[in-house]
Structures are given as structure tokens and as C-alpha cells.
């Protein structure tokens, strides 16, 4: 029963990541692409990790996976912030279509 639930959650996470990939190729300027890609990617990441955690119940394995989830939750927004900040400060302006 638990296997089924975790598989469903992992597939939902993969659907999110697929949306993130579509988001990368759909937008034409950098800022909207960065917004969509990082946000959807983090959501897909969380869903898959929760699916893995459910699959393994309560053990050292799940504790390590939870720790990785915490670290990445802090890191991903920071990385995207630093990328977009360096883009903005270096003067990447949007051309008004």
C-alpha cells in the first residue's frame, strides 16, 4: 500500500519537473524563465523527496533524505537569487517588445 502511494507522489513530482522543463523553453526573456524554472523545479524536488521518504517509513535513511531536503530547500532559492541578482546588476535590461 505504501509503495503505491510513494509511486504516485513520485510521478506527480516528475510531472512538476516536466512543467519546469516546458517553462524553460517557453519563455523568451531570462527573468520569467528563471522565475518559472527555479520555482517549479523546487516544488518537483520536494514532491519526489516526500515520495521517497514515505516509501521508507521511519529510519536513518529517511532522516538523511529529510536532511538533504532541508539543505536544498535553503540552497535552491539562494542560487537563483544570486544568478538573477548578478544578471540585474550587470545591466541585463528587458527590451520592450
Amino acid at each position: 500500500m505504501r509503495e503505491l502511494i510513494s509511486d504516485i507522489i513520485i510521478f506527480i513530482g516528475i510531472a512538476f519537473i516536466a512543467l519546469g522543463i516546458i517553462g524553460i523553453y517557453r519563455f523568451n526573456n531570462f527573468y520569467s524563465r528563471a522565475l518559472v524554472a527555479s520555482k517549479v523545479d523546487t516544488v518537483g524536488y520536494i514532491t519526489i523527496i516526500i515520495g521517497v521518504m514515505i516509501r521508507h517509513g521511519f529510519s536513518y535513511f529517511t532522516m538523511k533524505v529529510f536532511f538533504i531536503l532541508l539543505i536544498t530547500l535553503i540552497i535552491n532559492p539562494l542560487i537563483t537569487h544570486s544568478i538573477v541578482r548578478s544578471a540585474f546588476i550587470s545591466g541585463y535590461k528587458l527590451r520592450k517588445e
Partner: protein
Amino acid sequence: MTFAVVTLIIFSFLSAFRVLIGPTLWDRLLGLNLVTSKLIIIIILMACLRMESFLLDMALVYALLSFIGIIFISIYIQRKGRF
């Protein structure tokens, strides 16, 4: 579960392709960030498949190192090479 790993590998190739196309320099950094996060998910899924916990330590170290790498690259670009 193996289906999940295979699709994630395909997605990491697609975001790696974004690194190739990316018109601006920061698109490439964004693509690198996406490739890294997908590889971390793949490592965690492989660790879940093979029930080996040393892979999780590897995924954690890889996440931290990629974080430091991308942060310093973006700072280097932001300061236009004067680091």
C-alpha cells in the same frame, strides 16, 4: 521507480541543452543549476532503489559543492572578472 530515473535523465539532458542554447550567460548558469538539482534527485532515487545510504552522503556533498560553485561563478560575473 526505474521509469522515474530514466525520465529524470532525459530531463537533465533537456536542461543541459538549455545550457548550450542559452543566449545570455545567466541562462547557462540557470541551466547548470537545473541540471545539478536533477542529478541530485537521480542520486537520491538510485539510493532509494539500491538501499545504500552512502549515496545520500554523496548527494548532500554534491548539492553543497554545486551551491558554492554557482554562487562564486555568478559573483565573478557580477564583478565583471575583478574578483
